[in-house]
């Protein structure tokens, strides 16, 4: 059974008379341990897809099953609990709380899952260790570089051992060098068996993932534009199809 099953999911916004289909009848499976990117230009609906996959938003139509739970039927409280236990988010702007230090930021998800103080600190330090940031545990986010902040955010996303991690333009606010470092961190995590979904508008970044899904006008594009720079080679080396599942 795939980790995530989307069946005929639509998200429709209404602006007065006009109907905007941000997502239009999307069907998608994501398997356990997959490293996948969702690409598409801005306004294509990829963010909406990620929000729905990440239980931040609910679809207008269709069904979603995440780790066996029917999301579209879950209450707000369950969605919060699912976000807490099963999903990790990494954002473009890091989204660390400025008033808390790094380790406190990493502890945040565990506060809402009711982990005791001592265990919280241990696990947070372990997560920081994993992203090589343990020596900055007591720093405020503002005292860190962008790459360090993003690594702290990744540690926070991983600390509750989620089933799936969503990264929304994780390198969008970083220079290319640090961006590469973050991407290789994701690759390493993927090799450790994490399920990671990378959302980006940049095909170059998408190229690091074995599987890519392109969203265009709220629909999954049948064929990836293979002409895009460097993709054919990387896709071939990864040995997986770059074509989205129907």
């Amino acid at each position, binding site marked *: 059974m795939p980790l995530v099953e989307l069946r005929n999911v639509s998200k429709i916004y209404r602006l007065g008379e006009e109907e905007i289909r941000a997502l239009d009848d999307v069907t998608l499976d994501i398997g356990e341990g997959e490293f996948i990117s969702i690409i598409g230009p801005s306004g294509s609906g990829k963010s909406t897809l990620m929000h729905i996959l990440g239980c931040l938003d609910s679809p207008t139509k269709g069904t979603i099953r995440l780790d066996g*739970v029917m999301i579209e039927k*879950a209450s707000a409280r369950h969605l919060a609990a*699912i976000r807490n236990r099963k999903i990790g988010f990494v954002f473009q702007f890091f*989204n660390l709380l400025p008033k808390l230090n790094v380790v406190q930021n990493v502890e945040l998800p565990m506060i809402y899952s*009711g982990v005791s103080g001592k265990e919280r600190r241990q696990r947070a330090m372990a997560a920081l260790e994993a992203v090589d940031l343990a020596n900055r545990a007591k720093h405020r986010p503002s005292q860190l570089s962008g790459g360090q902040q993003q690594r702290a955010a990744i540690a926070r996303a991983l600390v509750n051992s989620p089933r799936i991690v969503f990264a929304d333009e994780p390198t969008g606010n970083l220079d290319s060098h640090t961006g590469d470092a973050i991407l290789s961190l994701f690759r390493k995590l993927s090799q450790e068996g994490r399920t990671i979904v990378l959302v980006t508008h940049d095909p170059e970044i998408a190229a690091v993932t074995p599987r890519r899904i392109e969203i265009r006008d709220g629909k999954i594009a049948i064929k990836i534009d293979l002409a895009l720079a460097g993709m054919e080679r990387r896709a071939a080396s990864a040995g997986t199809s770059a074509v989205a599942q129907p």
Partner: protein
Amino acid sequence: MNPAPLATSPEVLRHSWSQLGISILAGMREIWAHKFRSLLTMLGIILGVSSLVAMSALVAGMEKGAKEALVAIGGLEKVRIEPQGIPVEQRHLSDQATGITINDVQALEQSAPLVTLLSPEMRVFATLTANGKKFRPWNCVGVWPAALEMNEHVVEHGRMFNELDDEMARSVCVIGTETRDELWGSPETVGHEVIPVGETLFINGVPFTVIGMFQHYESERDRKERLLAQSQAGQPQAGGVVRNQGRGRRRGNFVFYLKNATVYLPLNTVWMKFRSGASQIAISYGGASRTVTGTTGDPRLSGLDAKLASVDVLPEALQQVRNVIMCTHKGIEDFTFRTQEDWAEQINTFVHNARLSGGLIAGISLLVGGIGIMNIMLASISERVREIGIRKSVGAATIDIFTQILVESVVIAILGGLTGLATSFALVSAISSFSPTDNAPIIKVTALAIAFAFSVLVGILAGIFPAIKAARLNPIQALRYE
């Protein structure tokens, strides 16, 4: 196919106490991060709470003072029967109106079982002279020895006159300390306590022997102050002159002053010496049109005090007394009742009103404090939209955000409330140091508890709306918020 393992797992829905602890800590951190802003916000609650406590302390002090005074004049069971002008429809009978006389007293003794004690009074408008000084006491009356019990007097030096003194119409008197202070000097001015028992006192020129003196009556606060002044003056006293003028001069509590300015004479003595025309001049000097003097002696009493068996039977007892006196007066209504209950009622009404108005004002200031908290919480959440979005994205449920904001508001209110309680002590001592009132404010534990509970309530009420607003934020929009 596992339909929903999460939905059934109690662990997921558990909202542990440790999370509340964390919310409180987060609230404290937030308050600490904006120290000055939080202090200003708390100030409203501090002022509200301390004014509530101070107000109730002042009212409690006044209430206690008034009740003390009520007891000092004889308690609730005392009813005074006084002469009154004849009503218009009975004017033609005025030549038959006898006024209140000893006749009535005897009739009541026989026919009014609900009356346990009777004390007739015959007032003399007297000028006292002795020791080369003059004094006009408030209350110079001829009474039976029963007046001692009736008016809660205690003879501290010498003795009260007895039935024999009354029967023989002896020229003896018992005085209060105010009379002593005026004629022989108070302990503070003289340096030692003068006990004028055995001295001669001229009442309207007629010599009387002082055979007793009452104790000094004062409110509890006066007594404490006097004792304090004594203990302080006790040590360094070199010249033996007590400089403290605190007592005697102090007339703040009028009831106690009046009680101290009492002179009791035997009833028969007054009747024979002052109502027989022998000292006509002195009586008309008092200007009382009520006490018509005649050459044969005026038997009318200026008043009659009756003590009832209990306050519970007050209406029945009054009716009984009324019936008896109506009978002896041939239906002419030339008397009236004055009960202490009116006064007690007045005290209660006053206390009630003071409490209500003071409570209202303090309540309004607490409310304003609450509005201040709400205002700052609303400002704070619109500053922290992004934080709320982040918290939601990592798994904070609506209730978690709600609790966090509410806890912040309540923590501000509780800190403000506690500070307000501490401030209220300072406020109360400040008020009592410069206010002229004689009644020391009393801070009651219940007042403290109520004020604190109100501050917490205000904190909760002020926090609910911002907390709902914060909890309802859409996480996606909150995350995008700049």
